[in-house]
């Protein structure tokens, strides 16, 4: 049997597949059930989504049992390769598992956040959850993809439903505008990335990451074409992670979109772009690190500086979070800027720190958005002053947000955020000390706006007892999950970071 019937390792594609199947189930159930007649029924799609996430997580855990023995497990391989190991389109290793965990956590929290909109009834829940699961399928797939075409398709699967999610709320013109803006930027970035991929393919003769690496190691004769292709591919992915100068869509899109979607974009969608970067740069192009590492390093410096400086003036909570997420993307990119000419082992170690930062960021940033969703139920304008006295009025949400903010700023008691910063610093100190110094200054700038917000939280409310929140159960759960996770990881950082760093970094 040569190349016609393949053995498919169902366990490996199980986790993304589970989400995809759930997506179809949600869509069909919604179509047959008709418009919800009660609030409980309106929550069914969200419940289905969470079930799907749970199944996917179980399958992922089973897959993890498999990887222990073999390191990497692959499927969808090209049989009958002429030389070397057979290249595969899908592979699961530690990196994949880490990203799967981040995506599943993100999807679960986002689904819980969206339940806040059920009462309002402006967002069709069935469609929304279908779209969420569809984009999550893409995010899961991208982490397992090992060829550029699968990677690109998965990235598009992440993006396309996201456009619709941004603009799905009925009668919201700002959301529609945000959606169009997001769409246009994303399409352009895809086009640029396609161009880059075709150049890389032209230079190396393969789309498989492994074979591209081999071709370049063997000394592809059109190195400059490969470099150009690599940089264009990076540009395409940088739109997704919202690195400067490809960040312009972020603030308007986050503010226009429902908060749950903004949370999704800031964590899951960013993670997808980020894993794409790791795959393309570290798996396919480690030989060209002297070319791309300085570029990404400069980009990281610009991203964090622009994000932090512009966040200083924001009075709108979500817009502030948008700029802060731009700045955080800059921190995540720092390790990429510090691997010029590094050996493969070093590169894996260094980039695992990016992944560690991303994991921490996912937990605390989702927490911040969850609390913003609560405050949004009473103050849709989301001014920072609307948060005044939150700690007294709604202690759980208030302290959770306070914790998330100090963790994002990287200060105790958000020890986990501080250690994440240490991770990134430690990757840059030495190979790119200038970048570490830029980052040190940025941490201080960032602190100013986080502290400003924190101050509002802890000040006494203007009218004590006036702002009583009706925290939707789902959102309460989301806050509880992220807050508890953040606190636990602050005491036992090894629980989160050791598997990520030791696993991915080998």
């Amino acid at each position, binding site marked *: 049997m040569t190349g016609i019937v393949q053995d498919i390792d169902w366990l490996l594609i199980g986790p993304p597949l589970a989400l995809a199947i759930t997506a179809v189930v949600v869509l069909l159930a919604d179509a047959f059930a008709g418009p919800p007649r009660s609030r409980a029924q309106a929550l069914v799609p969200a419940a289905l989504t969470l079930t799907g996430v749970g199944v996917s997580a179980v399958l992922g855990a089973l897959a993890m049992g498999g990887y222990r023995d073999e390191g990497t497990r692959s499927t969808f391989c090209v049989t009958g390769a002429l030389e070397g190991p057979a290249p595969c389109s899908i592979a699961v290793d530690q990196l994949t598992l880490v990203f799967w965990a981040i995506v599943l956590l993100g999807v679960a929290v986002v689904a819980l956040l969206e339940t806040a909109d059920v009462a309002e009834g402006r967002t069709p829940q069935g469609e929304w959850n279908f779209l969420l699961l569809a984009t999550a399928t893409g995010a899961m797939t991208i982490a397992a993809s090992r060829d550029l075409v699968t990677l690109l398709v998965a990235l598009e699967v992440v993006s396309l439903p996201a456009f619709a999610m941004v603009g799905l709320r009925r009668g919201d013109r700002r959301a529609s505008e945000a959606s169009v803006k997001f769409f246009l930027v994303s399409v352009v970035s895809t086009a640029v990335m396609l161009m880059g991929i075709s150049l890389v393919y032209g230079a190396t003769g393969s789309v498989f990451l492994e074979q591209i690496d081999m071709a370049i190691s063997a000394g592809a004769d059109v190195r400059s074409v490969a470099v150009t292709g690599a940089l264009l591919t990076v540009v395409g992915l940088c739109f997704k992670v919202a690195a400067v100068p490809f960040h312009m869509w972020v603030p308007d899109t986050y503010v226009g979109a429902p908060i749950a979607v903004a949370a999704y974009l800031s964590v899951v969608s960013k993670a997808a772009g980020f894993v794409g970067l790791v795959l393309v740069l570290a798996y396919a192009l480690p030989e060209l690190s002297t070319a791309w590492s300085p570029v990404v390093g400069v980009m990281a410096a610009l991203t964090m500086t622009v994000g932090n400086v512009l966040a200083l003036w924001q009075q709108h909570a979500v817009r502030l979070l948008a700029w802060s997420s731009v700045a955080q993307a800059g921190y995540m990119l720092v390790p990429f800027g510090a691997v010029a000419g590094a050996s493969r082992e070093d590169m894996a170690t260094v980039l695992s720190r990016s992944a560690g930062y991303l994991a921490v960021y996912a937990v605390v940033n989702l927490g911040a958005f969850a609390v913003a969703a609560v405050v949004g139920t009473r103050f849709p304008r989301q001014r920072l002053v609307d948060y005044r006295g939150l700690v007294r009025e709604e202690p759980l949400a208030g302290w959770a947000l306070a914790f998330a903010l100090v963790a994002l700023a990287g200060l*105790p008691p958000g020890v986990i955020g501080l250690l994440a910063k*240490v991770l990134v610093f*430690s990757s840059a100190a030495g190979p790119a000390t200038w970048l570490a110094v830029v980052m040190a200054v940025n941490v201080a700038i960032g602190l100013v706006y986080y502290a400003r917000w924190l101050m509002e939280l802890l000040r006494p409310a203007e009218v004590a007892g006036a702002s009583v929140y009706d925290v939707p159960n789902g959102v309460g759960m989301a806050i509880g999950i992220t807050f508890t996770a953040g606190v636990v990881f602050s005491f036992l950082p090894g629980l989160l970071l050791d598997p990520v760093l030791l696993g991915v970094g080998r």
Partner: protein
Amino acid sequence: MNAVLLNGLVALPAGFALLAALVSRRERAAVGVAVVGALATFAWSVWLVLRLGSAGGALGDPDRSVDVVWLEALDLHWRLGLDGISGALVLMSTLVFAAALFSLLRHGPDDAEGGPRRTGSLAVLLLVIEAGVLGSFLALDMVLFFVFFEVALIPMWFVISTWGDAHDAAARRRAATRFLVFTVTGSALMLVGFLLVRAEAGTFDIARVAASYTPSGPTALAASLLVALGLAVKTPLWPLHIWLPDAHSKAPTVGSVVLAAVLLKLGTYGFVRFWMPVTSPDWLLVPVVAALAVVGIVYGALACLAQADLKRLIAYSSVGHMGFVVLGAATFTLGGVQAAVFASVAHGLITGLLFFLAGAIKDRYGTTDLAELRLLYGKVPRMGGLFAFAAMASLGLPGLAGFWGEMLAIRAAVSPAAGLSETTYRWLAFIAALGVILASAYFLAVMRSMLQGPAVEATPSVDHVDVGAALPTDRVAAVRLGDRRPDVDAGEWVTWGPLAVLTVALGVAPGLLLTPVADAARAFLGGLG
């Protein structure tokens, strides 16, 4: 057993902070719990220092330190230990915190927002700061030091911006934010420096670094520079001191006391513990740091001469004192380390006392404006006398604690370590000695104007003014000759007494502190001259 003691010294204030936070709605109870916590911590620290002080062995020995893996992937360890250098600072800190929290029992500062006083929350924050400070003094892992260093920041920022100067909200917030931004920038740079040291020396364990690392090459220099930069912000070293006068003068009394007496010591302690081992005396960086320290001494004294506000004056005097500490460390001699630690402890006691007194004067007269304060000898004789005592100690009167640190620092600068230019250091010593004279000038000027002052016309005396009542806002009211206020009361004697007694004790018997510090420095840094 020692491990329990070491962990306990951090856990105790943290635990009591949690306990006080739980009852923080009932203010008296919360402050009471916090005071018990601070006293327990003080007792605990005495026990710990006595126990570890009598035991032999090096700093990082397993039986006298804690070493638990904290984050394996980064090789971060929870390493705590104590020797004569940190022991001295730990004792001083726990004492000052106990005094500061005890003073809250009497009455806390008003909430500058005009809301309830929330003294309970203030006490909780002070205990959190104490946990962070003690952790920093005990930490033997560079990253752990950084983590604890940061613990104190956010609470201190709250203390300044919530309970600070009630008259000027914008200035208070600006002072708080500036404090935060400067310190965080500094500590982040310091972290980068530590990570570079790790890349060079292969460990975060400062005891091992001190024992086996010989810094050389550009990376090691960059590391040392970054660490020095970060600590220079905290200490502060001229010209990075600009956050200090505002922060110290706008903070509430307990905040100023803690800032000046304890938080600055994180910087000076860092210079001795974490900068000296990663620095080679051959580098030009070392005399530059020493020169900046001397500039700070002179600058601090000159700035003091120009101050019109008592709290700002005390704040600027700290810049000068910290200059002596850093000058001592930058000589890389045993005497220099002794001077640095001694001056740190003495400054903590004396400046803590001065800020307490400034706060008490402010409570009674509603101002710390030197133009309005006159004739305190006549109005509050005991307080005036105590202030004169503290000012004398601060300007370095022989026989009091302030003298030894400055004298030893200058002596160490006259004969610095081999590899350092003797001529340069002699000049620096000479200029630093001039700074001592200038310091005498400004403190004597203040004592003359504030305690004695020109006679103002007498008015009928107002006895027994309730401190809690409205304070005089009329500027003239404060300068009337017969405007008597309650003198030092029992609570204040209890708070300030230990600081004053120790100032005398250390002044008379400096060996109490110098001997253990010398032993510890020899064991820690090895071949010091």
